[in-house]
């Protein structure tokens, strides 16, 4: 039987690649902010008629729980696997941070997935269907960088959440996170369009800058039975960036 996979941030560049890959073997719920982009992605997926789209903006986190629960009930769907790809980056001096910035990035990167998990672990709504969770974290969870404090702290929160969940939910649910380095996407394009910075990145990244498919392949492995004895782990996928002591 085909399982159902919920992908948050499905229309992100990395999320899209994950969706296209998984669409051959699973039914998908594509979650994102823009109905039209979600419908387009659905149409590009294999078996397109077996997937659902769910439009939601995590800035409205207060209403998310009920809206998402209603969506599951109305469509009689149970979710087996969850990939959390939605995420935003904010870069600024620490002294310029205000509570609104902080709430926004935590809503989108962290509270969104906590709310989602609370629903998917509710027996009345989702039975015992959930069996696998993957978070897209970032290498900035493990390393420091000027201006990236908010982003790093959201990704660190995801990794810590991942480990406690892996313990609480074993052996029924496996939970892992993937920590990408720089991948060519909308999020990184401002960095990669600066020639001086690009030159530096090319020296740091032993295997070059990543492509969305490099992350999708790892997610696919973690969702599959090939990784059935793996839980509670962080997987760095960064083309050798963080082990390269010479160019750090």
């Amino acid at each position, binding site marked *: 039987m085909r399982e159902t996979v919920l992908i948050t941030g499905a229309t992100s560049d990395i999320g899209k690649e994950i969706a296209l890959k998984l669409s051959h073997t699973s039914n998908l719920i594509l979650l994102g902010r823009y109905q039209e982009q979600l419908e387009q992605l659905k149409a590009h997926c294999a078996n397109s008629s077996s997937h659902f789209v769910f439009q939601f903006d995590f800035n409205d986190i207060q209403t998310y729980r009920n809206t998402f629960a209603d969506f599951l009930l109305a469509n009689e769907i149970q979710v087996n696997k969850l990939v959390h790809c939605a995420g935003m980056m904010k870069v*600024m001096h620490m002294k310029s941070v205000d509570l609104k910035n902080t709430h926004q990035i935590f809503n989108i990167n962290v509270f969104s997935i906590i709310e989602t998990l609370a629903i998917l672990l509710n027996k009345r709504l989702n039975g015992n269907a959930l069996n696998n969770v993957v978070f897209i974290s970032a290498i900035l969870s493990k390393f420091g960088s000027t201006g990236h404090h908010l982003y790093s702290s959201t990704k660190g929160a995801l990794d810590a959440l991942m480990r406690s969940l892996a313990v609480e939910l074993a052996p029924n649910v496996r939970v892992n996170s993937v920590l990408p380095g720089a991948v060519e996407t909308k999020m990184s394009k401002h960095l990669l369009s600066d020639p001086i910075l690009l030159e530096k990145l090319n020296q740091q990244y032993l295997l070059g800058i990543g492509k969305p498919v490099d992350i999708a392949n790892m997610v696919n492995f973690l969702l599959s039975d090939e990784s059935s004895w793996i839980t509670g782990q962080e997987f760095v996928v960064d083309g050798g960036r963080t082990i390269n002591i010479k160019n750090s």
Partner: protein
Amino acid sequence: MEQFKERLIDIFEVEEINDTDVIKQFEAWDSLTLLSIIATIDSEFGFQISASDFDKIETIADLLQFIENNKK
């Protein structure tokens, strides 16, 4: 707008700002200052100014006018 001006004073670490001040000539100006101003505008006025639009802005007066035209 007054609150935003106060935040600019903190960002640039100066005593006061004037309409004719040229943004890139503040001593505290760097790429992270730019990103901090972008985040502050998003937070105060609910829209995201792109780095390329910001590049066309010269003085404090230009910045305030741009915000006036684009705020939600």
